[in-house]
Each structure stands twice: as structure tokens, then as C-alpha cells.
């Protein structure tokens, strides 16, 4: 019998439709895989009972001839999405034990479309990190191993989601991307990750990190899978004022395989100093593949790229410092106080104990850049630069249909690396942050291996609300790259 955990979402969908197996079988196979791979720590909370219950209900629904777009397909949900009655932690101690009385819009849509939840995937605390080493619930380990067998990071912040998909612990997973949190872990784990246009998916019920940047998206094994899943996540939501009142196209239909005559832009500013040779090579290969498929490759310029990372690390912490003020120990989550403590004592003790180091660092950065006397020099200037970055892209998209760039400056690194200096860690986001600041859709797909045999991703950036082009080009690139390597233990 086929190993059901090796199926793509599309294959499983078709297999279920043909009656080759049931959702319960599919779900059980994944639950077993989750158990076998607990050492990777991809999940904070496993929900096997709920999963089986949902799978049974799904099979019953299918039997009645009423199958949704994601019917019976078991997925992991990043533990940043509030799930009704299921602990939602944002990987933080401060929310330990918090069980929302509500379901996020995105997970509601997925479940309404038939998806089965396997559990809540691990992540960096409050989605702040690029290595999934800031979770209160422990590091996530990448299913891929380095040559020396060392444990590698899965990337972050959606590290648990990426590891779950790469390791056969979920057919697909939800992720969220603020500055690269879907695309970079997708690249490190050899899977596909799509950050949609800001406003494409509702943020309602997603624990907020940086409201003007946060965007939910699919993390899958293939580009087609991403198209399928996005269709069930996207859509206008009156409960999120920033969600776009736009119809959801048939994303899967965009995968025509034909990109002849399309113009693909290559931004010269992404050729950063000290970029590893293998990344440059990967990028060049991507260019050649697109050219071979009939696309026209043109140079574009995004002159403000070099300011993007700095801008991001002002805007995102600023918003976070305010968004995280609600975790005060009063109404939910952890409270730390001693007899006779004042309100301020309770705040400081609860927040000191509840937030990890990286979260505290970003709250402090954010508070600083918004404070009187520094606001204009930092936050206000960052907003202006952000506008320029957006304009750079707008100008480029006057000439091209999509932009090709690497996803990350390296392959996955060993756990413990880059921890000595936060700025080193932040540099992982250098290629993903510009599209985030501009609110543009970005797709990462595995396109080659590093010298160590680790996956490397290429990124396609599209026009606002033009995920279809990104997916179409991504589909072609995916076929051409023919990335078949599997993590250790997942081969064959």
C-alpha cells in the first residue's frame, strides 16, 4: 500500500474522491507519523481525537456527495491561529493554557471546506524569529540533516508547519508570514510556501505580531497544493478592516504551464555582498529555466532594497510593542504576582516571566522607535522608506509580470548558529522582507540543493492580488527544477 504521508494534497484529494482510502485512514497515517517524529517537535499540541472526529465527519459528508475543496485532507495549523477549544499559545509561555472561544476566519474556512486538523504547529514565539529557536515549547528540528548529521533549524517563524509538511506529518500546513515566516522555512525545509498579498486572507483570529505585515498562507509540498489550499483560506472578511473586498479566483486554474511571452524581472540589488556562490548559481539556473520555458528575462531595479531590512526591523517591532500590550496577565494566560503587589508589579512580573528573550527585545526596540524624540528619526522615516520600497516594486511591475529572486541567503543552518548576534539572525530575512513591506505575494519553491545536500528555495514575487501569475510561473519553475530530493528517512 502507498505511504499516505508521502502524497501531495492534490493526490490525496483525488485518491479520496476515487475512494482509494478514507479521510480516517489518511488522518491515522499522519497521526502515526507525528508520533514517530515527535523528536522533531513540529507540534506544540497534537489533537488526534479531534482529527479522527473531523475525519469521520468528513467521510460521512463525502458519502452524502457533499465534498469541499479540502475535504478530508489532514493539515497542521500554525499555533498562531486561534482554534476554538484548542489551546493556542503563539509558542509563548504567556498564553500557555489559553483556549479561545472562537475560531480564526482562515481555519474556519479551511474546516468548512473539509480540512482536518492534526494539531497546532510549533513556531517562533509570537512568530518572531527565523530559526524556530525562540519557542517556549522548544526548538523545532528540520527533517533534513546536514552532512555531519547535525540537527538543523527549520527556519522560522513557521518552522513547525514547514517541518510537519517536509517530514510527512501533515499533507499541508497553514503558515503566517510577516517578514518571510512562510517563505524562508519553506526554503529551509524543501517545500512550497506562499505568502499571499496583504489583505488576501483575513487576519481575524490570528494572534497579531505586526498588523500591517502579517499574512496567512499555505505551506505545501507542491505549487498546485498551494493553489488548492489558498483557495480555501482567502476571501474578504468584514471582521478584518484590512482584508480586501475581492473575489477569490480559481488559483488552481492558473496553473496552465504556459509562461511564454511573460516577462520576469531580475532585481540586481538582490545580489548582495557575500552571497554564497551556490545561491547565485541557483538563481542563474532559475533564470535559465524560465527562459527555456519561453519567458523573457529582464533586469529590473529596486533601488531601496538595501533599506528594507532596517525598515522592517523598525516597523514590525513598533507594531508588535503595541500589539503585545494586551498580554498583561489580567484577562487570560499567565499571571505572576505576589501578595501585596501593585498593578505595575503584576505587569512587570507577568510579562517578564511570560515573554522570551527575543520577544522582549522586539518590544523594547518597538517601544524605543515610537517614543517621543525618536519617532521621526525611526518610525516615521521607516514609513517613508516603506513607501519608496513599494514604489520600487510598482515601477518594476510596470515592465515585468513577476520577479525572481532567491528566498534566503543560505540553506538551513545548525541549531545554535547565528544565536550570538540578533542582527545575524535578522539577515536571514533579507530577500523576503521587501515583498512583505510592499504587501506583495511571494512564493518560495525548492529549486536545488546546496553543496551539503540541503534544499534551497527560489522566490517569485508578484503584483498585488496577482497570486495567479506567481503560481503559474511557480508551476513552470517547479516542473523544470524537478526537485525530488527528500529529507533523511523520507526517501523513496
Amino acid at each position, binding site marked *: 500500500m502507498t505511504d499516505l504521508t508521502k502524497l501531495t494534497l492534490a493526490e490525496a484529494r483525488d485518491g479520496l474522491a476515487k475512494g482509494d482510502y478514507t479521510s480516517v485512514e489518511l488522518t491515522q497515517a499522519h497521526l502515526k507519523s507525528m508520533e514517530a517524529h515527535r523528536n522533531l517537535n513540529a507540534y506544540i499540541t497534537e489533537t488526534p481525537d479531534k482529527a479522527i472526529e473531523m475525519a469521520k465527519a468528513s467521510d460521512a459528508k463525502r458519502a452524502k456527495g457533499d465534498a469541499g475543496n479540502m475535504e478530508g485532507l489532514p493539515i497542521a495549523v500554525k499555533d498562531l*491561529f*486561534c482554534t476554538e477549544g484548542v489551546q*493556542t499559545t*503563539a509558542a509563548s509561555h504567556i*498564553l500557555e493554557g*489559553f483556549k*479561545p*472561544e*472562537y475560531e*480564526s476566519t482562515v481555519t474556519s474556512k479551511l474546516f468548512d471546506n473539509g480540512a482536518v486538523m492534526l494539531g497546532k504547529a510549533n513556531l517562533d514565539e509570537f512568530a518572531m524569529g527565523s530559526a524556530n529557536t525562540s519557542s517556549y515549547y522548544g526548538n523545532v528540528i528540520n527533517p533534513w540533516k546536514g552532512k555531519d548529521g547535525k540537527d538543523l533549524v527549520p527556519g522560522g517563524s513557521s518552522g513547525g508547519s514547514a517541518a510537519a509538511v517536509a517530514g510527512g506529518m501533515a499533507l499541508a500546513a497553514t503558515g503566517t508570514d510577516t517578514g518571510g515566516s512562510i517563505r524562508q522555512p519553506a526554503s529551509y525545509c524543501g517545500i512550497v510556501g506562499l505568502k499571499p498579498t496583504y489583505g488576501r486572507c483575513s*487576519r*481575524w*483570529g*490570528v*494572534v*497579531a505580531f*505586526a*498588523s*500591517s505585515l502579517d499574512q496567512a498562507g499555505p505551506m505545501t509540498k507542491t505549487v498546485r497544493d498551494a493553489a488548492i489550499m489558498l483557495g480555501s483560506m482567502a476571501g474578504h472578511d*468584514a*471582521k*478584518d*478592516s*484590512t482584508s480586501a473586498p475581492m473575489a477569490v479566483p480559481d488559483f488552481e486554474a492558473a496553473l496552465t504551464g504556459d509562461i511564454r511571452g511573460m516577462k520576469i524581472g531580475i532585481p540586481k540589488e538582490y545580489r548582495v555582498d557575500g552571497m554564497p556562490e551556490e545561491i547565485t548559481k541557483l538563481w542563474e539556473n532559475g533564470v535559465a529555466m524560465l527562459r527555456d520555458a519561453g519567458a523573457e528575462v529582464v533586469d529590473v531595479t529596486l533601488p531601496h532594497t538595501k533599506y528594507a531590512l532596517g525598515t522592517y526591523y523598525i516597523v514590525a517591532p*513598533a*507594531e508588535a*510593542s*503595541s500589539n*503585545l*500590550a*494586551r498580554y*498583561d496577565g*489580567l*484577562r*487570560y494566560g499567565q499571571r505572576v504576582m505576589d501578595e501585596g503587589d501593585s*498593578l*505595575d508589579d503584576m*505587569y512587570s512580573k507577568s510579562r517578564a516571566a511570560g515573554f522570551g528573550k527575543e520577544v522582549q527585545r522586539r518590544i523594547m526596540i518597538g*517601544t524605543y522607535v*515610537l*517614543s*517621543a524624540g525618536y*519617532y521621526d528619526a525611526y*518610525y516615521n522615516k521607516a514609513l517613508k522608506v516603506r513607501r519608496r520600497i513599494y514604489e520600487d516594486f510598482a515601477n518594476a511591475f510596470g515592465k515585468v509580470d513577476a520577479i525572481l529572486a532567491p528566498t534566503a541567503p543560505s540553506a538551513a543552518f545548525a541549531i545554535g548558529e547565528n544565536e550570538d548576534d540578533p542582527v545575524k539572525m535578522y539577515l536571514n530575512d533579507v530577500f523576503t522582507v521587501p515583498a512583505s513591506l510592499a504587501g506583495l505575494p511571494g512564493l518560495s519553491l525548492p529549486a536545488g540543493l546546496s553543496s551539503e545536500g540541503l534544499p534551497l528555495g527560489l522566490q517569485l514575487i508578484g503584483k498585488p492580488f496577482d497570486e495567479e501569475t506567481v503560481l503559474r510561473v511557480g508551476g513552470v519553475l517547479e516542473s523544470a527544477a524537478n526537485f525530488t530530493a527528500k529529507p533523511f528517512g523520507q526517501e523513496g
Partner: protein
Amino acid sequence: MTYIIEGSTGPWEIVVGLEVHCQVVSNSKLFSGASTKFGNEANSNVSLVDAAMPGMLPVINEECVRQAVKTGLGLKAQINKESVFSRKNYFYADLPQGYQISQFDKPIVGKGTIILDMPDGTTKSVGIERLHLEQDAGKSMHDQDPKYSHIDLNRSGVALMEIVSDPDIRHPEEAGAYLTKLRAIVRYLGTCDGNMNEGSMRCDANVSVRRPGEPFGTRCEIKNVNSIRFVMQAIEIEAKRQVEVLEAGGEIIQQTRLFDQRLGETRAMRSKEMAHDYRYFPDPDLLPLVFDDAFIAEIEKTLPELPDEKKARFINENGLSAYDAGVLVAEKEKADYYEIVAKGRDGKLAANWVITNLFGALNKAEVGIADSPVTAENLGKLIDLISNDTISGRIAKDVFEIMIETGGDPEKIVEEKGLKQITDTGAIESAIDEVIAANPDKVQEIRDGKDRMLGWFVGQVMKSTGGKANPGMVNKMLRDKILG
């Protein structure tokens, strides 16, 4: 009006600007669907958004936007078609989000004007700097438990309009007139109920003093004063304090102060005065608030006649004095009452009855116009009874007394008590004949030219008819009989 504090070193002038928080009349809160009903059980009007649960997002309540625009139009102010909500960040137990969503550098309403009606009948114009929308906080209760404070989030997220005046006020009474007028305007508009005792209208006063003609001095802000009278007192007391400090060679420190009405003093606030840096920034959960001219025009159509226009109409069409018109329009309910009474009747006569008799009686009984035992319809009928000579003005006053007591219909009262005026010539004539016959000497005096005595005869006849004789007829017939 000038208000000068005579200090030991010379005269001082006061400079005051007011910041008034008006709770917006709306069914639900500014950014959530929770009810705004006052007096519900603690923490029963709380949505997930109001409690700042993780992942919850604000969505603007369009009704509150309409109300703010309507108020802006009522203040003859500039309406900003694009405004921005910002977060004001600070930690407090009754502020679940850890920030208040407010408007900072781009408010929904800009410059406007309020015309003050001063007690002496004069007017004064005070500038409005801005009006912005913001969320109210919850309520902290420190008296429920010996060890813990309790929090009620019913008010958390309710829409407030903060209306900021220019520092144009120079007299405590102008501050009172400003608040009275502002309250009248929002009540006319139906955008705020203006109840200061329920906290739906709250006032902060910025007070400074200066030598007349010199630049503004350093100001102190007196927070959360909850009645018009207290605002006036607080300004007076704070200005005196500042003069004393300055004259003693001291310096005014810009600070937030509390008014203690019991002790009659203002004092610096302690705990909350730890120099907040609110770190305002545009709320990324909300798009800029944008609307078009059509939206404003739509609201403009719903504007009622406002106090200033009503006052002008009362003066021009009903012939009232500026003072009387001002008294009547001060509260919409009073003006409405007056209009019912005046309809189809003599406007001035109606105003006299409403202001002198009715308001006088209501004030004495400490009853508001809404609870008046005399309905406007009945007061109108009473005036009709005078006009059509059914009763005399004097009897009318008696009837009115009964109406105040019983709330009765004047026609019925006149009927039941037999107070109808005697207009039957025969009956009056016999009463006159009796008085003439009893006082031949006085008749002679009149005939000798002592006209004044005629009044005495009128009085006697009225007395003998129990006041019911038509005084005009009595007068005429007496004249005819004695002098004719």
C-alpha cells in the same frame, strides 16, 4: 465680560480652553458590536474585541462616524474627508488592549465655532480646534474588595467625541456658557445625551493666567470635572492658585490636576502623572477613515434646526427679546414646549407664560421640563381662555396654580370651579349698581374730578363678583354710569 483677578501686584486675566468628552449616542461601540446601554450588569456589554482577546480586530461603526460628522456640522466646523485612527499606548487595568484607539494628527473634524449666550443677553464666539473620535476605557472599582480592584468593561470601547476648544475663554461664566451651549447643540443633534452626572459628558479645563495683553502663561489641566458648576468653580480656584504662586515669585509647572469640590481646591494628580509617553502611531488594524461629499451631504440633510437658528427665528418671527429667545432655546425640550404653546397664538404672550410662570413654577418645584405637570397643550388652552375673554388674566393665574398642582385641563378647571368670566351686562350692571348705591360719597369724588377713584370701584365690583367680571366691561360700564 471681563474677569480680572486683582492680585497684590496688579490685575491678572485668565485664559481657558476646554476639552469635552461626549459619549456618542449609538447602539453599539466604536469598534465592536457590543451594546452601549448604560446601567447593565457589570461586564455584560463586552465583546471579544472589547476584552482584547488575542487576534481580535476593530471594525469601525459607521453610525459613530455619522454622529461625529453631524456634530461637526452642528459646530459649523470643517469636516475632514480623510482622517486616521492612531493608538495611544499606555498600561492600565481598565484598558484591555494596552492602547486606546483615538485620532491624533488627523481628526475627523477640524476648526469650528460655538456662539455663547451670556446671561446678560450678549454673545461671544469661541473657536473649536478639533473634534476626534476615540474609545472610552473601562471602569476601575476600588471599593468592591479589600485587596483587589474590580474592572467593569461595559464602557470599554464606547465611542467618545473629544471636542477641544481654542483658548478663547476669559471668564468662568464663559466656560459655563460654553458647556451649556455645547450640551444644547449635541442634544439638539441627538449625538450625545449630555448627561454630565452619568459621565456621558466630561470636561477637562486648561487654565492659565497672564497680565492682560501679554502672551499666554503656562497652563494646568484640571481633569474630569463632572458638572458645569464645578467647572466654573474649578477654573476660579485654579486661577487664584496660579496668581498666588506667581505673585509669591513661583513658577507654574505644566501638570494635570484634580478638582476637589469638597475642599474647594485643585491638586496635582499623583499616580497617573508619571510623565506618559503615549507613543501614538497610526493603527495598522484600521484603514484611514475616508468618505465623500455625498456622505456629508446625506448627514447634512438630517440636521435639525440648531439653537442659534432657532433663537434668531424666535426673535424675528415671534418678536421675542434676545434674552427670552436665549432662555427658550437653551434646551431643546424647552424650545419644543414653547413652540407648541406659541403655535397659532401670540408668541410673546406664550413666551411670558412659559418663561415667567411655567419655568418659575418648575424651578421652585425642582422639576425638569420633561416632567412638567402642565402640558404644552394645556398651557396653550389657558392662554386661549384669556384671549377669548373666558377668564381674566388674574383668574388665569389661579387656574395655572391648580394646573401645576393637579395637571388638569384648564377648560375643565374653569368649568368645575365656575371661574368663567361674567360678560353678561345685566349681571355686571347689577353689581355696579350695588356698589354705587353703597358709596354715594365716592361717586361724588369721581364726578368732582378724582378719576383715580374709578379704579377703586373696579376693584370693588371685581371683589363682589369673585373676580369673574370682565374687567374691561366693568371699567367701561362704571365710566358710563358715573360720568356718562
